[in-house]
């Protein structure tokens, strides 16, 4: 079971990233429960998605004790936070459990899990794909329920005409984590 928060501001593709992870989970036979932000907040306000992935429940016959029932993640319970915007970490960081990991898109901060995804996306000529750069970066650390190739398979189904650029952005993110993974992380 894994609980993931995806947070950003309206227009950054929070819903798309969440959908991508959810479809990947479904592909792998997991059951998913998501809560999304719609409406006025999508006009540039803080947007948050809650994604709960459980091994159980997809095909029924699962005891209620081993699956999710609520669409929301409680503060201090998320395993992973994907912050598509530096503000997103400040506003929604409290959802992370003490040993949870936040992958943050930020141009001005440093840390093992912080990446200037916006800059990388811009260099690729697709500034709107910074969400996929950050997702690739995060997935590259192998902390998710799914692997890099699992996500790429689903991306191929959902990216439509933007597939090539999307894959490029996703892989550029993966490459970034690849270079960091082998360096011992300072606390």
């Amino acid at each position, binding site marked *: 079971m894994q609980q993931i928060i995806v947070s950003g501001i309206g227009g950054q593709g929070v819903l798309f990233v969440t959908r991508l992870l959810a479809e990947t989970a*479904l592909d792998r036979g997991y059951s998913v429960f998501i809560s999304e932000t*719609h*409406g*006025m907040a999508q006009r540039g*306000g803080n947007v948050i998605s809650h994604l709960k992935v459980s091994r159980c429940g997809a095909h029924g016959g699962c005891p209620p004790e081993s699956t999710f029932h609520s*669409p929301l993640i*409680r*503060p201090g319970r998320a395993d992973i936070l994907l912050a598509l915007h530096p503000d997103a970490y400040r*506003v929604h960081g409290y959802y992370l459990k003490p040993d949870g990991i936040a992958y943050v898109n930020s141009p001005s901060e440093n840390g093992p899990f912080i990446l200037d995804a916006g800059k990388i996306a811009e260099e690729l000529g697709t500034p709107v794909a910074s969400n996929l750069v950050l997702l690739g970066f995060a997935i590259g650390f192998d902390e998710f329920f799914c692997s890099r190739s699992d996500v790429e398979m689903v991306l191929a189904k959902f990216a439509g005409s933007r597939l090539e650029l999307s894959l490029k952005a996703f892989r550029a993110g993966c490459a970034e984590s690849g270079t960091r993974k082998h360096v011992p992380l300072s606390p």
Partner: protein
Amino acid sequence: MSDRKILLGNEAIAHGLLESGCTMATSYPGTPASEVLSTLVQLKNACGLSIHLEWSINEKVAYEVALANSYMGRRSAVVMKQVGLNVATDPLMSSAYTGVRGGFVVVSADDPGPHSSQTEQDSRFTAMMAKIPVLDPASPREIRELVRVAFDLSEQHEIPVMLRPTTRVCHARQDMEVFPFADRKLFPLFEKNPARWAATPKFRLVLHRQLNEKLSRIEQDSTLAPRLVNDAPLRTGNPSRSRGDKTCVVSSGVALSHIKELMIELGLWDRVPLFQVMMPFPLSRSFIETTLSNYDRILVIEETYPVIELQLRLQAKVFGRLTGTVPSAGELLPEGIEDILRGFFLLPESDRSAPPDIPGRRPTLCAGCPHRAAFFAIKKAFPKGIYPGDIGCYTLGLNLGAVDTVLCMGASISHAAGFYHAFKASREDFPPICATIGDSTFFHSGVTALMNAVVQGARFVLVILDNGTTAMTGHQPTPARGRNLDGEAVPSLSIEEIVKACGVRSVVEADPYDTERLLQTLREAGDHARSADGGISVVISRRPCLMDRNRAGSWPKFEIRVNEKCRGCDFCIKQFECPALQAQGEKEPVRIDRNLCSGCGVCVSVCPHGALEAALSG
């Protein structure tokens, strides 16, 4: 053959409607209900179904159209958000009396929080007031099942049935099996029965008695009675109650889903009975009686008002919103419910950290939004004006100081009239009054308000912000489109013609991107409102929404440059608030975010120092 898909709660409703053989669905868009009808449109086109679908002009009309279909024995649904139900309350109350023939489901989506609404009102109370049953789903999977239950119940008792999801059900997604749809080609049969369909007050009394009988039968239907959720764990578990009293939890809707997870985690799952109320009204009398006699303390957790709680009459035993055990406003988030449960069952307090006390980002109009340009001109044309506003994206004119009131759909126009009459009646000179309303909201509720304002002799400027779509809720078409949802050509409504037909003599169209001309137009409109033979003056500020993918917006795109005259006064940021203009700190020149800038060029005329320049970009 079935298939497994991840469906949004609202998509699950659409699937449920089609799986149950619904032949007509009508709606007016509103968060959190909007995606139900748009999903139906997609499924209709994909599967070649014959169901009639429409975005009606408002919820009252939507209700009446779908009801007629039900009168003819065909399953029908009307879909709206909770404040839309207020608009449809008139036909709702009356149709409870007339009853229905084909199953009739009223989907009214509530918005505890509220996230995207004027109120946190509980539609279940409206169902209670109308004396119709209401079902309260706990998850997207469950709501799909409940659509079928609602249709069966409605048909069996010939009564409208309400389905009341909340935002966290509408906008949650779950994987579930989906099934192919049966396209029901049911012949419409209208059996004349004036004593029922056109009942006079005398027959209305008869209908009321019949309604009471229906309700009583529904209340006694054991299949709809509250059920014990954790029966098995209670039997195998160790009911070593921490206190000597007999306690249970009663819940419904998404609150129940949160509670399940929490009770498992807090070790209450095999100790404390948890009852799910699928149908909060009418609440099963035998459930009320057995619960009150079997338990000493009953904790009721429901959203948003105490509907179940009030029906459990022995208040000394019942804990909930009325006793202050559950907060009486705001959404019930799982962390809040955790605190309630810990308090009620005397468990140690949670050690989770509190959310940081920092303001989130407020929503803003998009970069290049034509509304922003219009609001800037309005403030400039009527500096000391009163600005009644309305419901839509353009409510965000608040950020620009160009919206003073927001009440409900269409109220901008009636408010403007009321403000004017107040000054006139007290023989005061009136300040400029400039109301704003969007095109879809104008069609929905503005027209009647405008007719009234005209015939009462009000004087003000009305700016109709016409972006050709219902933008906030996801770009649903307006009556100006000239096509129905089947793509057939239908007459297109002209705002100019309607405004003129309402009796307004001064109607001018303007392009909000042309700041100087719009300003001039607004000033002339203001003069007309004050002139001897003047009256209401309407300015139609017309530009398609930039986010509307159905309409490829084309205009000469400018490349904006900040020149050396910018001293970082931040006038543009404070007065224009375009997300593409970014402050760089005190006395530092502003920066243009090229990824956000739409190239509309309006900011060039906003800067009082001429520090923003536009060049046509290739």
